[in-house]
Protein backbone atom coordinates (compact mmCIF):
# COMPACT_ATOMS: atom_id res chain seq x y z
CA UNK A 1 0.00 0.00 0.00
CA UNK A 2 1.79 3.09 -1.25
CA UNK A 3 -0.06 5.58 0.92
CA UNK A 4 0.27 3.65 4.16
CA UNK A 5 -2.21 3.06 6.90
CA UNK A 6 -4.00 5.31 9.39
CA UNK A 7 -5.25 3.80 12.64
CA UNK A 8 -7.38 5.45 15.30
CA UNK A 9 -6.31 3.77 18.53
CA UNK A 10 -9.11 3.28 21.04
CA UNK A 11 -6.78 2.98 24.04
CA UNK A 12 -3.10 3.52 24.90
CA UNK A 13 -2.67 -0.27 24.97
CA UNK A 14 -4.04 -0.58 21.44
CA UNK A 15 -1.71 2.18 20.26
CA UNK A 16 1.28 0.37 21.79
CA UNK A 17 0.16 -2.92 20.24
CA UNK A 18 -0.08 -1.28 16.81
CA UNK A 19 3.40 0.22 17.24
CA UNK A 20 4.80 -3.23 18.05
CA UNK A 21 2.99 -4.78 15.10
CA UNK A 22 4.32 -2.25 12.57
CA UNK A 23 7.92 -2.10 13.73
CA UNK A 24 9.80 1.10 13.03
CA UNK A 25 7.51 2.30 10.24
CA UNK A 26 4.72 3.53 12.51
CA UNK A 27 4.43 6.89 14.29
CA UNK A 28 1.83 8.10 16.72
CA UNK A 29 0.06 11.37 16.02
CA UNK A 30 -1.50 13.62 18.65
CA UNK A 31 -2.04 17.31 17.80
CA UNK A 32 0.37 17.17 14.87
CA UNK A 33 1.90 20.57 15.65
CA UNK A 34 5.40 19.08 15.59
CA UNK A 35 4.84 16.05 13.36
CA UNK A 36 2.92 17.78 10.55
CA UNK A 37 5.48 20.60 10.40
CA UNK A 38 8.09 17.88 9.74
CA UNK A 39 5.81 16.29 7.13
CA UNK A 40 5.22 19.60 5.35
CA UNK A 41 8.96 20.33 5.35
CA UNK A 42 9.53 16.87 3.85
CA UNK A 43 11.70 15.93 6.80
CA UNK A 44 9.44 13.01 7.60
CA UNK A 45 7.33 10.75 5.38
CA UNK A 46 4.67 8.89 7.32
CA UNK A 47 4.11 5.24 6.44
CA UNK A 48 1.80 4.18 9.24
CA UNK A 49 0.08 6.69 11.51
CA UNK A 50 -1.54 5.79 14.81
CA UNK A 51 -3.82 8.60 15.91
CA UNK A 52 -4.18 9.13 19.68
CA UNK A 53 -7.09 11.59 19.64
CA UNK A 54 -9.71 8.90 20.32
CA UNK A 55 -7.62 6.79 22.72
CA UNK A 56 -9.25 8.15 25.90
CA UNK A 57 -5.98 9.85 26.82
CA UNK A 58 -7.30 13.36 27.35
CA UNK A 59 -8.34 14.72 30.72
CA UNK A 60 -7.13 15.93 34.10
CA UNK A 61 -7.93 14.36 37.46
CA UNK A 62 -6.60 14.34 40.99
CA UNK A 63 -5.24 11.31 42.78
CA UNK A 64 -4.19 11.96 46.36
CA UNK A 65 -1.54 14.66 46.27
CA UNK A 66 -0.95 14.47 42.54
CA UNK A 67 -2.57 15.54 39.30
CA UNK A 68 -2.92 12.97 36.54
CA UNK A 69 -2.87 14.58 33.10
CA UNK A 70 -3.67 12.43 30.08
CA UNK A 71 -0.83 12.66 27.55
CA UNK A 72 -3.20 13.67 24.74
CA UNK A 73 -4.68 16.56 26.71
CA UNK A 74 -4.36 19.77 24.65
CA UNK A 75 -2.17 22.46 26.17
CA UNK A 76 -5.07 24.95 26.17
CA UNK A 77 -7.19 22.58 28.27
CA UNK A 78 -4.39 22.33 30.86
CA UNK A 79 -3.92 26.10 30.79
CA UNK A 80 -7.64 26.67 31.47
CA UNK A 81 -8.07 23.94 34.09
CA UNK A 82 -9.08 25.24 37.56
CA UNK A 83 -7.48 22.10 39.05
CA UNK A 84 -4.13 22.87 37.41
CA UNK A 85 -4.35 26.55 38.44
CA UNK A 86 -4.96 25.44 42.01
CA UNK A 87 -2.55 22.49 42.38
CA UNK A 88 0.28 23.21 39.92
CA UNK A 89 0.18 26.92 39.03
CA UNK A 90 3.81 26.73 37.85
CA UNK A 91 2.77 24.42 34.99
CA UNK A 92 -0.15 26.68 34.04
CA UNK A 93 2.13 29.74 33.99
CA UNK A 94 4.62 28.03 31.65
CA UNK A 95 1.97 26.77 29.23
CA UNK A 96 0.42 30.23 29.03
CA UNK A 97 3.64 31.45 27.40
CA UNK A 98 3.86 28.67 24.82
CA UNK A 99 3.21 29.19 21.11
CA UNK A 100 -0.17 30.87 20.51
CA UNK A 101 -3.83 30.00 21.18
CA UNK A 102 -4.39 27.92 18.01
CA UNK A 103 -1.25 25.86 18.57
CA UNK A 104 -2.14 25.30 22.22
CA UNK A 105 -5.62 24.14 21.17
CA UNK A 106 -4.10 21.31 19.11
CA UNK A 107 -0.70 20.61 20.70
CA UNK A 108 -0.64 18.16 23.59
CA UNK A 109 1.51 17.75 26.69
CA UNK A 110 2.52 14.22 25.63
CA UNK A 111 3.56 15.41 22.16
CA UNK A 112 5.66 18.18 23.69
CA UNK A 113 7.53 15.72 25.93
CA UNK A 114 7.80 12.85 23.40
CA UNK A 115 9.25 15.23 20.84
CA UNK A 116 12.07 15.71 23.37
CA UNK A 117 13.17 19.11 22.16
CA UNK A 118 15.72 20.74 24.48
CA UNK A 119 13.34 23.72 24.32
CA UNK A 120 10.16 21.79 25.23
CA UNK A 121 8.42 24.32 27.43
CA UNK A 122 6.36 21.90 29.53
CA UNK A 123 9.55 20.07 30.53
CA UNK A 124 11.02 22.86 32.65
CA UNK A 125 8.07 23.26 35.05
CA UNK A 126 7.44 19.51 35.12
CA UNK A 127 11.08 18.79 36.01
CA UNK A 128 11.00 21.38 38.77
CA UNK A 129 7.80 19.85 40.15
CA UNK A 130 9.19 16.30 40.11
CA UNK A 131 6.72 14.92 37.56
CA UNK A 132 6.79 11.35 36.29
CA UNK A 133 5.43 9.67 33.16
CA UNK A 134 3.34 6.57 32.74
CA UNK A 135 4.64 4.78 29.66
CA UNK A 136 2.46 2.11 28.11
CA UNK A 137 4.16 -0.51 25.94
CA UNK A 138 3.03 -3.60 24.10
CA UNK A 139 4.27 -5.73 26.99
CA UNK A 140 3.11 -3.64 29.92
CA UNK A 141 3.52 -0.28 31.56
CA UNK A 142 6.15 1.46 33.66
CA UNK A 143 6.59 4.72 35.47
CA UNK A 144 9.62 6.87 34.66
CA UNK A 145 10.60 10.07 36.49
CA UNK A 146 10.75 12.90 33.95
CA UNK A 147 14.28 13.60 35.22
CA UNK A 148 15.31 10.24 33.68
CA UNK A 149 13.26 10.51 30.48
CA UNK A 150 15.30 12.70 28.12
CA UNK A 151 18.57 11.34 26.74
CA UNK A 152 19.49 13.87 24.02
CA UNK A 153 17.99 16.29 21.49
CA UNK A 154 14.92 14.48 20.13
CA UNK A 155 15.85 11.40 22.16
CA UNK A 156 14.31 9.75 25.18
CA UNK A 157 14.05 6.39 26.93
CA UNK A 158 10.73 5.78 25.13
CA UNK A 159 10.88 2.29 23.60
CA UNK A 160 9.90 1.59 19.99
CA UNK A 161 6.56 0.12 21.11
CA UNK A 162 5.88 2.58 23.92
CA UNK A 163 3.81 5.73 24.23
CA UNK A 164 3.41 8.27 26.99
CA UNK A 165 -0.05 7.65 28.43
CA UNK A 166 -0.11 9.98 31.40
CA UNK A 167 1.83 12.70 33.19
CA UNK A 168 1.74 12.62 36.98
CA UNK A 169 2.48 15.93 38.68
CA UNK A 170 2.84 16.22 42.47
CA UNK A 171 0.68 19.09 43.70
CA UNK A 172 2.52 22.18 44.89
CA UNK A 173 2.08 22.65 48.65
CA UNK A 174 0.23 25.92 49.25
CA UNK A 175 3.28 27.42 50.97
CA UNK A 176 5.71 26.52 48.18
CA UNK A 177 7.16 29.40 46.21
CA UNK A 178 7.77 29.33 42.49
CA UNK A 179 8.66 31.50 39.56
CA UNK A 180 8.96 30.96 35.81
CA UNK A 181 10.47 32.95 33.00
CA UNK A 182 10.79 32.26 29.31
CA UNK A 183 13.17 34.34 27.24
CA UNK A 184 12.28 34.23 23.54
CA UNK A 185 12.88 36.36 20.46
CA UNK A 186 9.40 37.80 20.79
CA UNK A 187 6.58 37.44 23.29
CA UNK A 188 4.28 35.06 21.43
CA UNK A 189 4.83 32.16 19.10
CA UNK A 190 8.54 31.86 19.67
CA UNK A 191 10.64 29.01 20.97
CA UNK A 192 12.63 29.48 24.14
CA UNK A 193 16.16 30.85 24.01
CA UNK A 194 16.33 30.16 27.73
CA UNK A 195 13.55 29.14 30.07
CA UNK A 196 13.82 28.73 33.82
CA UNK A 197 11.50 27.34 36.48
CA UNK A 198 12.38 27.63 40.16
CA UNK A 199 10.48 25.96 42.94
CA UNK A 200 11.19 26.22 46.68
CA UNK A 201 9.74 25.21 49.99
CA UNK A 202 10.74 27.54 52.76
CA UNK A 203 10.12 26.81 56.42
CA UNK A 204 11.24 29.02 59.28
CA UNK A 205 13.01 31.29 56.80
CA UNK A 206 15.15 28.44 55.47
CA UNK A 207 14.93 26.53 52.25
CA UNK A 208 13.70 23.02 53.00
CA UNK A 209 13.49 21.86 49.37
CA UNK A 210 14.39 23.42 46.05
CA UNK A 211 14.47 22.68 42.35
CA UNK A 212 15.88 24.71 39.47
CA UNK A 213 15.08 23.59 35.92
CA UNK A 214 16.38 25.14 32.70
CA UNK A 215 15.27 24.72 29.09
CA UNK A 216 17.01 25.30 25.74
CA UNK A 217 20.49 25.50 27.29
CA UNK A 218 21.63 21.86 27.12
CA UNK A 219 21.03 18.79 24.92
CA UNK A 220 18.00 18.03 27.10
CA UNK A 221 15.83 20.06 29.48
CA UNK A 222 17.97 20.28 32.58
CA UNK A 223 17.49 19.88 36.32
CA UNK A 224 20.33 21.81 37.98
CA UNK A 225 20.68 19.62 41.05
CA UNK A 226 23.98 20.99 42.34
CA UNK A 227 22.63 24.51 42.16
CA UNK A 228 19.46 23.55 44.02
CA UNK A 229 21.58 21.73 46.62
CA UNK A 230 23.37 24.99 47.44
CA UNK A 231 20.05 26.46 48.60
CA UNK A 232 19.20 23.62 50.98
CA UNK A 233 18.98 24.75 54.61
CA UNK A 234 19.96 28.32 53.71
CA UNK A 235 18.15 31.61 53.77
CA UNK A 236 17.70 33.15 50.32
CA UNK A 237 20.22 35.94 50.78
CA UNK A 238 22.20 37.65 48.05
CA UNK A 239 25.31 35.48 48.38
CA UNK A 240 23.36 32.20 48.40
CA UNK A 241 21.36 33.27 45.36
CA UNK A 242 24.48 34.35 43.46
CA UNK A 243 26.20 31.04 44.18
CA UNK A 244 23.18 29.01 43.06
CA UNK A 245 22.78 31.07 39.88
CA UNK A 246 26.47 30.56 39.05
CA UNK A 247 26.20 26.81 39.65
CA UNK A 248 23.07 26.62 37.47
CA UNK A 249 24.87 28.37 34.61
CA UNK A 250 27.82 26.01 35.02
CA UNK A 251 25.48 23.04 34.60
CA UNK A 252 24.37 24.28 31.17
CA UNK A 253 26.02 23.27 27.90
CA UNK A 254 24.26 25.43 25.33
CA UNK A 255 24.78 25.63 21.59
CA UNK A 256 24.81 28.48 19.07
CA UNK A 257 21.72 28.50 16.90
CA UNK A 258 19.47 30.91 15.03
CA UNK A 259 17.79 31.91 18.28
CA UNK A 260 20.86 32.73 20.33
CA UNK A 261 24.51 32.04 20.96
CA UNK A 262 25.92 29.66 23.56
CA UNK A 263 27.64 32.62 25.21
CA UNK A 264 24.38 34.50 25.55
CA UNK A 265 22.47 31.46 26.79
CA UNK A 266 24.95 30.75 29.58
CA UNK A 267 24.93 34.34 30.79
CA UNK A 268 21.15 34.59 30.47
CA UNK A 269 20.78 31.35 32.46
CA UNK A 270 22.72 32.83 35.35
CA UNK A 271 20.87 36.14 35.18
CA UNK A 272 17.41 34.60 35.01
CA UNK A 273 18.03 32.12 37.85
CA UNK A 274 19.30 35.01 39.94
CA UNK A 275 16.31 37.14 39.06
CA UNK A 276 13.76 34.43 39.86
CA UNK A 277 15.37 33.42 43.17
CA UNK A 278 15.51 37.08 44.17
CA UNK A 279 11.79 37.28 43.40
CA UNK A 280 11.16 34.31 45.71
CA UNK A 281 13.25 35.89 48.47
CA UNK A 282 11.34 39.17 48.25
Amino acid at each position, binding site marked *: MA*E*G*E*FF*RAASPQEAAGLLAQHGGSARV*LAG*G*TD*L*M*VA*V*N*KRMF*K*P*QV*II*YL*GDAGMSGISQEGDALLIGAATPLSVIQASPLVADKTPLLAAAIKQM*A*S*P*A*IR*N*AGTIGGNLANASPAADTATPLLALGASLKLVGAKGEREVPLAEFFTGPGQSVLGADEIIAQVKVPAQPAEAKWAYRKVGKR*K*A*QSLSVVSVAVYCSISGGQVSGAAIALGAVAPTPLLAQDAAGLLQGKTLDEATIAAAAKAAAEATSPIDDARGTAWYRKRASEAVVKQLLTELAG
Partner: protein
Amino acid sequence: MHTLELTVNGQGHKVEVGLKTTLLEVLRDKLHITSPKVGCNTGDCGTCSVLLDGVLVRSCITNALSVQGKSVTTLEGIIEPGDIHPLQKAFHENYGSQCGFCTPGMILASKALLDANPSPTRDEVKEALSGNLCRCTGYVKIIDSVLAAADEMKS
Protein backbone atom coordinates in the same frame (compact mmCIF):
# COMPACT_ATOMS: atom_id res chain seq x y z
CA MET B 1 -5.93 6.53 -0.26
CA HIS B 2 -8.37 6.89 2.60
CA THR B 3 -11.89 8.23 2.69
CA LEU B 4 -12.43 11.27 4.88
CA GLU B 5 -15.91 12.39 5.85
CA LEU B 6 -16.27 15.82 7.36
CA THR B 7 -18.71 18.69 7.60
CA VAL B 8 -17.59 22.07 6.31
CA ASN B 9 -19.76 25.13 6.94
CA GLY B 10 -22.73 22.88 7.62
CA GLN B 11 -22.37 20.75 4.51
CA GLY B 12 -21.23 17.12 4.52
CA HIS B 13 -18.33 16.07 2.27
CA LYS B 14 -16.53 12.86 1.41
CA VAL B 15 -13.02 13.14 -0.05
CA GLU B 16 -10.06 10.84 -0.73
CA VAL B 17 -6.87 11.79 1.12
CA GLY B 18 -3.42 10.39 1.86
CA LEU B 19 -1.46 10.16 5.09
CA LYS B 20 0.35 13.43 4.47
CA THR B 21 -2.72 15.42 3.40
CA THR B 22 -3.51 18.44 5.56
CA LEU B 23 -6.91 19.91 6.33
CA LEU B 24 -5.81 23.04 4.43
CA GLU B 25 -5.22 20.96 1.27
CA VAL B 26 -8.65 19.35 1.64
CA LEU B 27 -10.34 22.73 1.98
CA ARG B 28 -8.53 24.52 -0.85
CA ASP B 29 -7.64 21.83 -3.37
CA LYS B 30 -10.53 19.38 -2.97
CA LEU B 31 -13.42 21.55 -1.81
CA HIS B 32 -12.28 24.83 -3.42
CA ILE B 33 -12.92 26.80 -0.26
CA THR B 34 -10.23 29.43 -0.54
CA SER B 35 -10.55 31.79 2.44
CA PRO B 36 -7.94 29.77 4.37
CA LYS B 37 -4.65 30.81 2.74
CA VAL B 38 -1.35 29.02 2.36
CA GLY B 39 1.11 31.27 4.16
CA CYS B 40 3.97 29.50 5.86
CA ASN B 41 2.62 25.93 5.95
CA THR B 42 4.47 25.45 9.25
CA GLY B 43 1.99 26.76 11.81
CA ASP B 44 3.67 30.14 12.24
CA CYS B 45 1.50 32.73 10.51
CA GLY B 46 -2.14 31.92 11.20
CA THR B 47 -3.62 32.71 7.79
CA CYS B 48 -4.86 29.11 7.39
CA SER B 49 -6.82 29.25 10.68
CA VAL B 50 -10.21 27.51 10.84
CA LEU B 51 -12.58 26.48 13.61
CA LEU B 52 -12.67 22.73 14.26
CA ASP B 53 -15.77 21.85 16.28
CA GLY B 54 -15.65 25.53 17.30
CA VAL B 55 -11.97 25.48 18.36
CA LEU B 56 -9.37 27.60 16.55
CA VAL B 57 -6.67 25.49 14.84
CA ARG B 58 -4.13 25.78 12.04
CA SER B 59 -5.43 23.83 9.07
CA CYS B 60 -1.93 23.66 7.51
CA ILE B 61 -0.62 21.41 10.28
CA THR B 62 -3.85 19.52 10.98
CA ASN B 63 -3.65 16.02 9.55
CA ALA B 64 -6.75 15.57 7.39
CA LEU B 65 -7.56 12.10 8.69
CA SER B 66 -7.53 13.35 12.27
CA VAL B 67 -10.68 15.41 11.58
CA GLN B 68 -12.77 12.39 10.51
CA GLY B 69 -16.42 13.10 11.36
CA LYS B 70 -15.71 16.59 12.66
CA SER B 71 -17.16 19.93 11.76
CA VAL B 72 -15.07 22.71 10.23
CA THR B 73 -15.99 26.38 9.95
CA THR B 74 -14.10 28.64 7.58
CA LEU B 75 -14.65 32.35 7.04
CA GLU B 76 -17.23 31.45 4.37
CA GLY B 77 -19.34 29.77 7.04
CA ILE B 78 -19.53 32.41 9.77
CA ILE B 79 -22.57 34.08 8.22
CA GLU B 80 -25.16 33.38 5.49
CA PRO B 81 -23.99 34.33 1.98
CA GLY B 82 -25.06 37.88 1.21
CA ASP B 83 -25.00 38.92 4.86
CA ILE B 84 -22.07 40.53 6.65
CA HIS B 85 -20.80 39.46 10.07
CA PRO B 86 -20.19 42.23 12.64
CA LEU B 87 -16.49 41.32 12.57
CA GLN B 88 -16.33 41.71 8.79
CA LYS B 89 -18.19 45.02 9.04
CA ALA B 90 -15.85 46.24 11.77
CA PHE B 91 -12.70 45.29 9.81
CA HIS B 92 -14.16 47.15 6.82
CA GLU B 93 -15.12 50.27 8.75
CA ASN B 94 -11.96 50.46 10.87
CA TYR B 95 -9.48 49.83 8.06
CA GLY B 96 -8.53 46.49 9.60
CA SER B 97 -7.55 44.98 6.28
CA GLN B 98 -5.28 46.05 3.43
CA CYS B 99 -4.22 43.22 1.11
CA GLY B 100 -6.53 40.88 3.00
CA PHE B 101 -4.24 37.86 3.05
CA CYS B 102 -4.23 37.59 6.84
CA THR B 103 -7.84 38.70 7.26
CA PRO B 104 -9.69 35.34 7.18
CA GLY B 105 -7.40 34.05 9.94
CA MET B 106 -7.67 37.29 11.89
CA ILE B 107 -11.47 37.19 11.77
CA LEU B 108 -11.69 33.54 12.80
CA ALA B 109 -9.22 34.04 15.67
CA SER B 110 -11.32 37.06 16.72
CA LYS B 111 -14.53 35.05 16.46
CA ALA B 112 -13.04 32.32 18.66
CA LEU B 113 -12.19 35.01 21.21
CA LEU B 114 -15.58 36.77 21.14
CA ASP B 115 -17.48 33.46 21.33
CA ALA B 116 -15.69 32.74 24.62
CA ASN B 117 -15.32 36.29 25.88
CA PRO B 118 -17.77 38.88 24.47
CA SER B 119 -16.11 41.83 26.27
CA PRO B 120 -12.36 41.41 25.86
CA THR B 121 -9.81 43.97 26.96
CA ARG B 122 -7.28 45.30 24.47
CA ASP B 123 -4.66 42.97 25.97
CA GLU B 124 -6.96 39.98 25.62
CA VAL B 125 -7.43 40.79 21.94
CA LYS B 126 -3.65 41.02 21.52
CA GLU B 127 -3.20 37.63 23.20
CA ALA B 128 -5.95 36.05 21.07
CA LEU B 129 -4.33 37.34 17.86
CA SER B 130 -0.75 36.65 18.98
CA GLY B 131 -0.37 33.78 16.52
CA ASN B 132 -1.68 35.72 13.51
CA LEU B 133 0.80 37.74 11.50
CA CYS B 134 -0.08 40.71 9.31
CA ARG B 135 2.53 42.24 7.08
CA CYS B 136 0.72 45.27 5.77
CA THR B 137 -2.09 46.71 7.89
CA GLY B 138 -0.22 46.57 11.19
CA TYR B 139 -1.94 45.50 14.35
CA VAL B 140 -3.43 48.70 15.77
CA LYS B 141 -6.31 48.89 13.32
CA ILE B 142 -6.92 45.16 13.51
CA ILE B 143 -7.26 45.34 17.29
CA ASP B 144 -9.48 48.43 16.95
CA SER B 145 -11.67 46.45 14.55
CA VAL B 146 -12.11 43.55 16.97
CA LEU B 147 -12.98 45.86 19.85
CA ALA B 148 -15.48 47.71 17.63
CA ALA B 149 -17.08 44.40 16.63
CA ALA B 150 -17.33 43.36 20.28
CA ASP B 151 -19.19 46.62 21.07
CA GLU B 152 -21.49 46.18 18.09
CA MET B 153 -22.26 42.54 18.96
CA LYS B 154 -23.17 43.46 22.54
CA SER B 155 -25.59 46.19 21.51
